[in-house]
């Protein structure tokens, strides 16, 4: 029983909790409701709405 454990165990548990909260948040915000659509949406090119792809990337499709 060293000071290392006192530090590492809360870190391990904290990281696990973080993952758990992230999962619950994703579930609640509907990210698991349309999985097929989510797979498709990555391919949609947004047109001039702030997150325009970099110029070099735009011609890849």
């Amino acid at each position, binding site marked *: 029983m060293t000071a290392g454990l006192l530090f590492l165990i809360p870190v391990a548990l904290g990281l*696990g909790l973080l993952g*758990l909260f992230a999962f619950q948040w994703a579930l609640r915000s509907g990210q698991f409701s*349309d999985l097929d659509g989510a797979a*498709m949406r990555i*391919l949609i090119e947004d047109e001039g709405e702030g997150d325009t792809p970099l110029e070099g990337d735009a011609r890849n499709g």
Partner: protein
Amino acid sequence: MNAPLPGASAMGDGAAVLARARLSIPGMHCAGCIAKVERLLGAADGVYGARVDFSEKSVAIDHDAAQIDVPQLVRTLEQNGFAAHPILTLDEAADSADAAAARHHAMLLSALGVAAFASMNIMLLSVSIWSGLAGNGRTIFHWLSAAIAVPTVIWSGRPFFQSAWGAVRHGRTNMDVPISIAVLLTTGMSLYETATHGPHAWFDGAVMLLFFLLGGRVLDSMMRERARAGASALMAAGAAGAMLVDGTGRAVWHAASAIRAGDMMLVAAGERLAADGVLIDAAARIDQSILTGEAASIPFAKGQMLLAGMLNLDAPIRVVARAVGDDRRIAELARAMRDAGQQKSRYVRIADRAARLYTPVVHALAALGFLGWMVAGAGAHQSLLVAVAVLLITCPCALGLAVPVAQVVASGALMRSGLLVKDGSALERLAECDMVLLDKTGTLTLGRPVPQSLDGLDATARAVALALAQASSHPLSRGLARSLNEAGAVPADVSDIAETPGIGMQGLWQGQKVTLGRHATGQDAAQDVGMSVTLTIGDGAAHVIVMEDVLRPDATAALGALRSLGMPQQIISGDGAAAVAKVAQALTLSATATADPDAKLALIERLRAEGKRVLMVGDGLNDGPALAAAHASIAPSSASDVGQQAADMVFMGDSLNALPRAVRAARMTQRVVRSNFMLAIIYNVIAVPMAMAGWVTPLVAAVAMSSSSLIVVANSLRLVRAAR
């Protein structure tokens, strides 16, 4: 573009009426379609936001009902090549059941997430205890484990506790009873051990048990969830409302629920009726395929009754509503279907049958272990530990995964081969079927008119015919266009195309008038009403194209394959004796003709009484009750919405080979499920004596539980190729 923007409603004129509409868009199949649909709708005036649900092939639209109504939204999409229909549910009970199922699924997922987190972290702590951590350190680690395990058991155990309590309260028992007892007893015992600084705590076992079992439950519900999205995606046609003519002669769109008996509905060409009613115009041509499954143009005269769901093919008609809401024929059939479906809900699934044997055995073994050690003088504490070990080690992990994993893998394989399975019990029931009843029109046949032969048409005629046919939504035109497309015809450059309701299509091609439509001489009443079209080019001779409903491809081969699987067949059809006899002869099957929905239901009941397990294959609304009542049922994806809703499975494409493929896959799934049970039994035969002997430590339990679960999963993965 996607988010609703409620703040943008300050449009100046009048009050904005915020409404949400749901449209089904069956033709959406790529990312481009999603983007296009959302952009089109987003750009329309009065639309605040549109969000596509791709799994459901639908779009939810927040819009200002005062500025843009549902038909206008549909038109916006249709002008750009997306066929869209407002989503209509046959009854609200089914709708809210859907919502409840979706909530339950989300709850299971959340419980699974919590259990996964807890079992990982408790395992992390347990590893150091198994490696020899002792004294105060061990006690601290046990307390930490307890702090994670107790909330997890309360949260993630709810689905099991609720179901177990429900069973016990009614004096029954199910798989969840031993699970709940094992989890609660293990947790309680571990808390006692922790408080008394004992060497062994079983928190990891309890939580891992929950994790594996929830995994099985989530898979099971995922399969139902997937089919649910599929079913509402397929529920395309049907009127969600109608244009009602008010006192001043103005037509305003109303939702189906707002229509009252006595209202006058204005039904445009190509629209479906939203309520049963009486025709008050002189004549109409109606497609009643939603009722019969047969796409044909049937003439109706003034004063005749039209039913909700029928499709008006020709000129706009006026219909006075007689029966609305639950009084509609379509709703009556839905009720008959629901009643017939009750039979199915009494079916006991194989997992529950296994649980009936399993539960008393496990409880007896645990009690035996406790009593045995007590008699041997080991003391209550030691004896209770043995009982807990028995309960935990015989945990139905493998049993809980045996059925759902196999069924999920098999239904995934079937889905890839074009068969949608609604739930796991459908596979179990299908595997048990020993005879087949087949509907004729739309099931054995394609249910759409196909030209007998295209030989009479040269390339020019084909090109002109295709150009005209593809501009019309008439069933004959659609059937002709499809066959011409398949024959490789390229549409000619025909201009000024116009459709005259009841007569046909006309246009201009290289300066000549071309027409496609009814016989000009009006002799079509003589034979085969409405089942032939005439093509004229300029002053040339008329080409008569005779259309008929043909057998599905592979029908003979598929039925032969079913027979070799030990499933004899019969035809039961609502059509006339002559039409049925022709198909029955071609397939050498016995047949019953002119059977109404009640007669079909009665035949199934009679066969059931004789001990037969009937697989019903049908498509029409008239098959709905029979599909719901049969031991298992399959519908083609060309079926009416009702047929697809009532059936356990839906197959895509035209080929009937889907039937033997489904039966073979279902039987193979059943074999794998049984071998999974065998594996679980073998495991228990080894593990239980060890637990009874008191050799099982938390480490042994953790290894045994996870390895038995992995073996079952691996065995089930053999089904990946089940649908070949």
